């Protein structure tokens, strides 16, 4: 896979800072040059609109982007070295950018899914220093000096699947599969901390990941199988 090749790990490489896909709104990348309304809250703005009967047409209202005209002193340095799946990737990161956005849209690691983008569903779960976190609600700027592991980083260099991944296949864990990367990351975090969990402990560890197909028991079976070293059974 691309991020495993050492040559692409440095500054060079087209995948580091891709142009925003045209179908995505520009404010994902903070590139929309919108009229500044610094200091005006949305509530105040709505009140203003109601009071004056003005038509709602401003792009700033749509996006809620309050963009200062110039960066203030002392704010974060935008160029960040991220340790993702054991590789150092240099990325230009916006101050407000979440880890999920950086992983998916700047590093091309789209195995990490965005479901709710509100820290509710768990599809974006990644490991930070081995512990499960919602990447949709983690600022990329907090990742300096940390090790991020995504679903792409679980496979061994020889191409062997992680035991939790293999157990997912053996137990037919996923149904539609959208939440699976997040479920796997939660399972891996659990087994890192507690290699021999009870089913109840596993249930609790997986409780931050929603599955709209309702394949919860299948996921639990998979985690328990991985904990048994891949063997079937109770």
């Amino acid at each position, binding site marked *: 896979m691309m991020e495993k090749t050492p040559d692409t790990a440095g500054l060079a490489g087209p995948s580091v800072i891709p142009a925003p896909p045209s179908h995505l709104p520009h404010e994902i990348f903070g590139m929309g040059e919108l009229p500044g309304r610094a200091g005006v809250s949305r509530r105040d703005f709505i009140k203003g609109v109601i009071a004056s009967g003005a038509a709602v047409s401003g792009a700033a209202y749509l996006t*809620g982007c*309050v963009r*200062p005209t110039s960066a203030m002193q002392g704010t974060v340095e935008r160029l960040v070295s991220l340790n993702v799946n054991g590789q150092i990737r240099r990325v230009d990161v916006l*101050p407000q950018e979440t880890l999920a956005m950086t992983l998916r849209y700047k590093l091309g690691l789209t195995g990490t899914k965005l479901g709710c983008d509100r*820290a509710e569903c768990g599809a974006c779960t990644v490991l930070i220093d081995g512990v499960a976190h919602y990447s949709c*609600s983690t*600022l990329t700027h907090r990742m300096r000096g940390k090790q991020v592991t995504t679903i792409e980083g679980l496979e061994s260099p020889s191409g062997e699947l992680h035991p939790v991944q293999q157990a997912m296949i053996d137990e037919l864990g996923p149904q539609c599969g959208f939440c699976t990367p997040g479920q796997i990351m939660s399972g891996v975090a659990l087994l890192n901390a507690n290699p021999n969990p009870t089913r109840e402990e596993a249930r609790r*560890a997986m409780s*931050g990941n929603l599955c709209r197909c309702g394949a919860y028991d299948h996921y639990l079976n998979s985690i328990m199988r991985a904990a048994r070293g891949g063997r079937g059974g109770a």
Partner: protein
Amino acid sequence: MLKDMMPHFELFQPSSLENALDLADRLGDDGWALAGGHDSFNSFKNRSTQIHSAIDLAGIAELQGIRETTDGVEIGAMATLTEVERHPLIRERYGLLADAVGQVASPQIRNSGTLGGNVCQDTRCWYYRFGLSCYRAGGNVCYADAPEAMNREHCLFGANRCVAVTPSDAAPALVALDASMVIRSSSGERVVRAEDFFMEPSRDIRRMTVLKPSEILTTIQIPAAWAGAKFYFEKVADRKAWDFALVSVAAAIKVNGNTIEDIRIVCGAVQCIPRRLTAVEQAVKGSPQNEQTAERAGAMAVRGARPLNYNHFKMPLMENLVKRAIRDA
């Protein structure tokens, strides 16, 4: 309207508390102190809160860690809920807090959510969260207390224009343990008891705590006075994971023989602040810890409740939780 991606803000990552306080001073109302960030990011993405600059507290060593002191334990405001839940000292002597924070949201949120952030959360009233111009948002109406309003999650007590409730699971436990909050600003330090830390709408409807924009909650101190007491925490919510409490109860009870010698009992999600049941405490002190006392306490706990259209169910719920706390602690 697009309510989606994180809007732009400037980000400051101070490495010392001094720098953070300087920034908080300089930025004033434009600054926003960021702890774990879950509550904040949701508000930003939903455009119900708009900020100019965020002060990230994650890099400040003074705000981290859990330390034993001569009189109890001191928890840095940026200690994560997982750290608090798993800390041997907290588990052994202040199990009430470990139980409470262990029921916050989901594992991932507890891994990055902090104790300081948990007690500083904004309310979950969805009319307010939706960005409507209600009293709390500076307007002049409460959408949750209108005739057609859906107010199943709202308050039983202490309504004052606003009928929102405290969302924190840790808060009732901290009040029951008689914790103190250490607050710093560039001009000094003040210590506020946990029960005085939360703001009633009658005092200031725009704020959930006594924190001012220039102040940062640095430490939560738990005195040894209640270490090793009998504890009871129970949270009832629609879902066992992620969800906020419909009613929660936290109790610390000192029992001698079978007699209740001293007690602090607090309910969450029934008022805008954690509701300490002082009348119940007075009434059960000196009584035996049994079914009868518990029954009496439960009935007393809901006295004076003023339910809204859809939250009558909270009254028997609260009554039963108080009853169980006193009987089963």
